[in-house]
C-alpha cells in the first residue's frame, strides 16, 4: 500500500513532466531558417556602394529618449542631427528584449526565437551561434571585410570565426559601470589612427549604460555622465568619419529599458531603442524634420521616424553593397533611397523584394510565387507584379505585407504536440485529484480548501497582470492561510495571540523587503537598508551569528564540543568575510568598519585587490559547508546520535550556503525566515500535541510550506519575468565558465527562499513531535500527505497555465508574460518539486 502510493506519485510526476515537455516542444518550435548565404538577385548594373567602411556602435539598452530627448546629455549627437550629418530613428525591437536575441535580430534581420532569451544566460551553449546562419557580419566577412570587435562577448559567441581582432568583455558583472566601457574605448586611439588601414568594419558594444539601468534605473545619477561619455566616443568616431568619408557610423541600442531599468519584456520603453546613422554624406537626404534636435520628451517614445530594428539589416547591406542576409525580414529604410540615382534606387528595392520573395515562397511552400494559384498567395503576386514593374510604392507595399506576414507566421505552433501535452497534464491532474479525494475523504473541508486554492492559482494564470503581480496573489493566500489556521486551531492555541501577531508581523516584514511585479514601485525595507549600510551590516552580522549559534547548540555537541564550535564558527566567519570582500570588490556602499577586516584578509591571502580574493573565498565557503553537512549526516548514522535536531541542523548549515548566494540587502531576510520558522513550529507543535488529527496538522504544515516557498521567492525580489534573473552571485567561486556549476549557483541564488523552506519545513513537520520513536515512524505518512498536496497543486496549476498559453497563444503578451511564466513554472515543477522533494526524501531516509 505504502509503496503503491509512491509509485503512483512518481508516475504522476513523470506524466506532468512528459506533458510539459511535449507542450513546450510544440509551443516553442525551433525556428526554421533557410540555410546558405544570400546572393545578389539582380544582374548588373547593381547599385554602387555608398560606403566601404563601417563602424557599428552598439550601446546596450540605449532607449531612444537617452539620445534624442531634451533630457539627453548627448549634445554632440544633437549637433550632428541639426546639421544633417546624422539621421535619427526610434527602432522597434521585438521582444524578448534581451541582448542575445536582439543582436540576432540586428544582424540577421529575422525575428527572434523565444528560446534565445533563455540561451542568453547559457553561455556555453553553441546552438545560439550564428556561424551558419546568414547575417550582415557573415556577408561582410565573405566579401573580404576585416572586422574588429570590441565589447560584449555575446558577439564572439554569436560569430566565433568572423572577427579579425577582438577584445571581449563579459556582461555579467552588472555592478561594473566603468571598466566594461573603458575596455572598449581604450582601443579606439590606436584603431582610428595607426591601425586605421587594418580594418574595414569595427563593431563596438558598450555595456555600461545597461548596467547603470539595472542598478539604478533610467533616472540614475550615473546616467548623465554615461551619456556624456558615449557622446564623447561618438565625437571621436565622427572626427574619424570626417577624415574618411567612405566610413558609415551607426549607433544603435539593442533594446531599451522600462521605468525601473530592467528589460526583457514588451513595454514601450523596452522596445523603443535609439538608432542613428552618421556621415557627412547624409546631409542631402536629411529632411527638415529630422534636423530638430533634441525632441521634447514624450510618453510614447515618438522620436523621429519609427522603424523596425531589423530594417537596419537590408539598409546596411545595400549601403555597403553586400548581399542581403538570407533570412532577413527587414525593409530597406526609404529615407536612404535618394542617395542613389533613380535607376539604381530601383535596384536597391528590387534586391530587397527578391530576397524577401524567397522567404514568402518558403512560408507558403510554393516553388515560385508567380506560378502559384493559391488564393492567399495571390495578394502577394499582385504586389510583387507592381514592384517588378518598377513602382516604388508597389515595392514597399509588397515588402511591408511580406514583413508582417512572415513575422506573424514565424511561430508555427505544432498543435499535435501541444494538445497531447495538455492531455497528459489533464490526465495527471485528474489522477492527482482522485488521490487527494481518497486521502481526504474524511476531511472534506481540507481537501476542498487545497483544491480550491490550487484552482484559484490555476485560474489566475489567465490574467496577464495576475501573472506579473503574482506576489500579491501569494500574499493574499498567505494572510488567508494564517487567518484560517488561527480559527481552526483549538481554543487553547488561539489564546497565544501574541505569537500569532508576531508571526503575522514577521511575514509582513518579509513582504515589504522587495518589490516584485510591474505595477507598484513602493519604498521597501531592502532599499532602506541599502541606503543605511551600517544597519544592514549589523543585521548581516546578527544573521550569521544567530545561524552559527544555532548550529553550535545543535546536536553536533554530542559528537565533539570542539568540532561543534569550530565548524559553524569557520563557516559563518568565512561567509561573512566573503560577503564583505564582495561588496568592496563590487563598489557597493559599505560601512567603513568593514575595511580593516577586508584588508586583513587580503593581507593574509597575499592579495592586492578584493576582486582576486572572491573566487578562493567562495570556494572555501562551499567546501566548509560541504564538510559541515557531511559531518552532520555521518554523525546521524551513529548509534549515539540525537536525531531530534537533525533537520534543524541541516537547515541551518544549508542556510549559510544559501546566504552566500544571496545579495547583500536580502541577507537579513534569513533572520526573518528563522523567526517565522520558530514561531510556526511552536504553534504547529501545540496543534499536533493536541492531537486533533494528524492529517490536518500535516496538511497545514504542507500548505504553509508551499505558501512560504512562493512568498519568499517573490519577497527576495524575483518575478515571473526574465528581467529579474539575478546573476550577480552566479559566478561565486567559479574560475572558468562551467555551465553546470553556474547553473546550480544561479538556481541557488534565485530560488534561495524556496530551497530554504523545502528543507526547513521538514523541521517544522517532524522535529517537535519526534520525541518518541513512535512519532519518528510516522514520518513517511506525513511526507506522503505533503507530497500529495504538492502533486495536486502543481498538476492543477500546470493545467491552468498551459490552458492559458493555448487559449492566449495569439495574445499580445504571449512571449513577454506567459512564456516566461511557463519557464518559471517548469523550473518550479522540476527543481523545487522534483529535485528538492527528492532531496527531502533522502534526508528522511537518514533521519
Amino acid at each position, binding site marked *: 500500500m505504502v509503496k503503491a502510493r509512491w509509485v503512483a506519485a512518481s508516475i504522476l510526476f513523470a506524466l506532468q513532466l512528459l506533458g510539459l515537455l511535449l507542450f513546450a516542444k510544440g509551443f516553442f518550435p525551433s525556428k526554421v531558417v533557410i540555410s546558405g548565404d544570400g546572393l545578389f538577385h539582380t544582374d548588373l548594373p547593381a547599385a554602387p556602394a555608398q560606403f566601404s567602411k563601417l563602424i557599428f556602435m552598439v550601446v546596450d539598452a540605449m532607449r531612444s529618449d537617452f539620445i534624442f530627448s531634451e533630457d539627453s546629455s548627448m549634445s554632440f549627437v544633437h549637433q550632428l542631427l541639426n546639421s544633417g550629418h546624422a539621421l535619427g530613428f526610434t527602432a522597434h525591437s521585438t521582444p524578448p528584449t534581451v541582448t542575445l536575441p536582439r543582436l540576432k535580430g540586428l544582424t540577421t534581420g529575422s525575428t527572434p526565437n523565444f528560446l534565445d532569451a533563455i540561451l542568453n544566460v547559457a553561455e556555453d551553449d553553441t546552438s545560439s551561434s550564428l556561424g551558419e546562419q546568414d547575417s550582415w557580419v557573415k556577408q561582410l566577412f565573405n566579401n573580404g571585410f576585416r572586422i574588429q570587435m570590441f565589447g560584449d562577448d555575446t558577439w564572439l559567441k554569436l560569430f566565433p570565426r568572423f572577427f579579425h581582432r577582438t577584445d571581449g568583455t563579459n556582461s555579467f558583472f552588472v555592478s561594473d559601470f566603468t571598466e566594461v566601457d573603458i575596455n572598449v574605448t581604450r582601443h579606439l586611439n590606436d584603431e582610428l589612427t595607426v591601425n586605421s588601414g587594418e580594418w574595414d568594419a569595427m563593431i563596438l558594444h558598450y555595456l555600461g549604460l545597461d548596467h547603470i539601468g539595472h542598478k539604478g534605473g533610467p533616472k540614475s545619477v550615473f546616467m548623465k555622465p554615461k551619456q556624456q561619455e558615449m557622446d564623447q566616443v561618438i565625437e571621436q568616431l565622427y572626427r574619424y568619419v570626417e577624415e574618411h568619408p567612405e566610413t558609415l557610423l551607426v549607433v544603435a541600442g539593442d533594446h531599451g529599458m522600462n521605468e525601473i531599468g530592467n528589460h526583457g519584456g514588451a513595454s514601450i520603453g523596452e522596445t523603443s531603442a535609439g538608432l542613428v546613422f552618421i556621415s557627412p554624406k547624409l546631409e542631402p537626404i536629411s529632411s527638415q524634420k529630422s534636423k530638430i534636435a533634441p525632441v521634447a520628451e514624450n510618453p510614447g517614445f515618438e522620436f523621429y521616424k519609427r522603424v523596425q530594428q531589423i530594417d537596419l539589416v537590408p539598409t546596411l547591406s545595400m549601403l555597403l553593397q553586400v548581399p542581403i542576409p538570407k533570412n532577413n525580414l527587414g525593409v530597406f529604410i526609404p529615407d536612404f533611397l535618394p542617395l542613389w540615382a533613380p535607376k539604381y534606387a530601383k535596384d536597391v528595392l528590387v534586391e530587397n523584394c527578391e530576397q524577401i520573395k524567397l522567404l514568402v515562397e518558403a512560408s507558403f511552400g510554393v516553388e515560385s510565387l508567380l506560378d502559384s494559384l493559391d488564393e492567399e498567395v495571390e495578394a502577394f503576386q499582385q504586389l510583387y507584379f507592381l514592384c517588378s514593374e518598377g513602382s516604388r510604392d508597389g515595392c514597399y507595399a509588397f515588402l511591408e505585407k511580406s514583413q508582417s506576414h512572415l513575422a506573424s507566421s514565424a511561430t508555427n505552433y505544432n498543435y499535435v504536440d501541444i494538445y497531447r501535452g495538455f492531455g497528459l497534464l489533464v490526465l495527471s491532474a485528474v489522477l492527482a485529484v482522485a488521490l487527494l479525494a481518497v486521502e481526504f475523504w474524511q476531511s472534506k473541508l481540507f481537501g476542498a480548501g487545497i483544491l480550491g486554492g490550487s484552482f484559484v492559482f490555476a485560474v489566475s494564470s489567465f490574467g496577464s497582470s495576475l501573472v506579473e503581480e503574482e506576489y500579491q496573489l501569494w500574499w493574499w493566500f498567505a494572510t488567508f492561510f494564517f487567518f484560517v489556521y488561527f480559527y481552526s486551531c483549538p*481554543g*487553547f492555541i488561539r489564546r497565544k495571540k501574541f505569537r500569532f501577531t508576531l508571526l503575522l508581523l514577521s511575514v509582513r516584514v518579509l513582504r515589504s523587503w522587495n518589490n516584485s511585479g510591474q505595477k507598484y514601485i513602493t519604498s521597501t525595507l531592502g532599499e532602506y537598508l541599502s541606503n543605511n549600510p551600517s544597519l544592514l551590516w549589523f543585521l548581516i552580522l546578527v544573521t550569521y551569528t544567530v545561524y552559527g549559534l544555532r548550529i553550535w547548540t545543535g546536536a553536533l555537541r554530542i559528537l565533539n564540543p570542539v568540532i561543534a564550535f569550530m565548524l559553524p564558527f569557520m563557516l559563518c566567519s568565512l561567509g561573512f568575510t566573503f560577503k564583505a570582500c564582495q561588496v568592496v570588490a563590487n563598489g557597493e556602499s559599505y560601512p567603513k568598519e568593514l575595511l580593516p577586516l577586508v584588508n586583513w584578509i587580503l593581507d593574509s591571502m597575499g592579495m592586492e585587490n578584493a576582486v582576486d580574493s572572491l573566487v578562493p573565498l567562495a570556494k572555501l565557503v562551499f567546501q566548509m559547508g560541504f564538510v559541515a553537512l557531511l559531518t552532520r549526516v555521518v554523525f546521524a548514522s551513529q548509534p549515539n546520535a540525537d536525531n531530534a535536531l537533525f533537520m534543524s541542523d541541516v537547515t541551518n548549515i544549508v542556510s549559510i550556503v544559501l546566504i552566500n548566494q544571496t545579495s547583500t540587502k536580502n541577507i537579513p531576510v534569513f533572520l526573518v525566515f528563522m523567526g517565522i520558522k520558530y514561531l510556526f513550529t511552536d504553534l504547529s507543535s501545540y496543534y499536533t500535541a493536541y492531537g486533533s488529527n494528524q492529517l490536518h496538522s500535516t496538511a497545514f504544515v504542507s500548505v504553509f510550506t508551499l505558501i512560504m516557498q512562493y512568498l519568499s521567492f517573490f519577497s527576495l525580489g524575483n518575478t515571473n519575468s526574465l528581467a529579474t534573473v539575478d546573476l550577480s552571485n552566479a559566478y561565486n567561486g567559479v574560475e572558468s565558465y562551467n555551465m553546470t556549476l553556474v547553473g546550480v549557483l544561479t538556481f541557488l541564488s534565485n530560488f534561495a527562499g524556496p530551497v530554504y523552506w523545502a528543507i526547513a519545513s521538514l523541521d517544522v513537520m517532524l522535529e517537535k513531535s519526534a520525541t518518541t520513536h*513512535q512519532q519518528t515512524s510516522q514520518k513517511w505518512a506525513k511526507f506522503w500527505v505533503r507530497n500529495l498536496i504538492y502533486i495536486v497543486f502543481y498538476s492543477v496549476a500546470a493545467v491552468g497555465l498551459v490552458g492559458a498559453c493555448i487559449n492566449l497563444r495569439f495574445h499580445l503578451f504571449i512571449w513577454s508574460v506567459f512564456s516566461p511564466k511557463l519557464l518559471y513554472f517548469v523550473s518550479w515543477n522540476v527543481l523545487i518539486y522534483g529535485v528538492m522533494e527528492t532531496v527531502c526524501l533522502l534526508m528522511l531516509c537518514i533521519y
Partner: protein
Amino acid sequence: MARKPVVKKLVSFLDVILEAPHPPTLEPPSETSRSLLNVPIHALLLIWSYFSFGLTRDVAGTMARMIPNLILLQIGYAYVLLSKGKTKRTKKKGRGNDNVLIYASLFVALVASIPIFSVLVLFGSPLYDHLKETYLLALHLSFLIIYPLLVVYQYDLEVWFNLATFNVDSLAQNPVYVSSVAAFVGAWLGVFPIPLDWDRPWQAWPITLLVGSYLGYFVGGVVHYFL
C-alpha cells in the same frame, strides 16, 4: 495516544475555560430582527455619494470629508437598530441610556480605528507610502462596522470574544453581525482588482476595499433579511 496525560498537565488551568459548560450566549433575539429597516441601505447611498464627491480624484481628501456624513447616518442607523430590539431592553434601560450608548460609542469607535489600522497593516496594507489612506480606511471600517456592533452588543468582553471567533448561535438573529462579517469579506475580496492592468482611477488604494466593505455591509443586510 500515549501523549494525552502529558497534555493535560501542561494546560490544566486552561481546561477550565475550554470546557466551560455554557459559553456565554449573545443577546437573545427579538421577534422583529428580520425587518427591512435593518437593511443598511445607507451604505449604498454613502459609497455612491463618495464617488460623486470626487473619490477618484482626491482619495484621501474625499474619504476624510465624508466621515461626518458616515457618522450621522450611522447614528440614525443605531437608533433604528435599538428601537427594533426594544421588546426586552425597555424593561431594563430607558431612552436616556440609549443616547449615552449611541454617543459614547462614537468615541470608542474612533479609538477602535487604531487596532483596525494595525490589523490592516498586518494583512498587507501599505504603511509607508499610503499611511493617510490606510488610516482613513481603518476609520471608515470602524464607523461602518464596529460602531453598530458596539451599539447592539455593548460592552461585554465575552460576547465580543464570541463574535470574533464566529461563535454565534444563530446568524438569523444577529442582523448587524451578518452585515459586519460580509463587510469584512467585501473588503477582503476588494483587493482583487487592484493589480489588474486596467489603469482605472478607481483601482487606486484603498477605493476597492472601501467599495467592497460598503457593498458587503449592504449585501450582508440583504442576505440576513432572506435568511
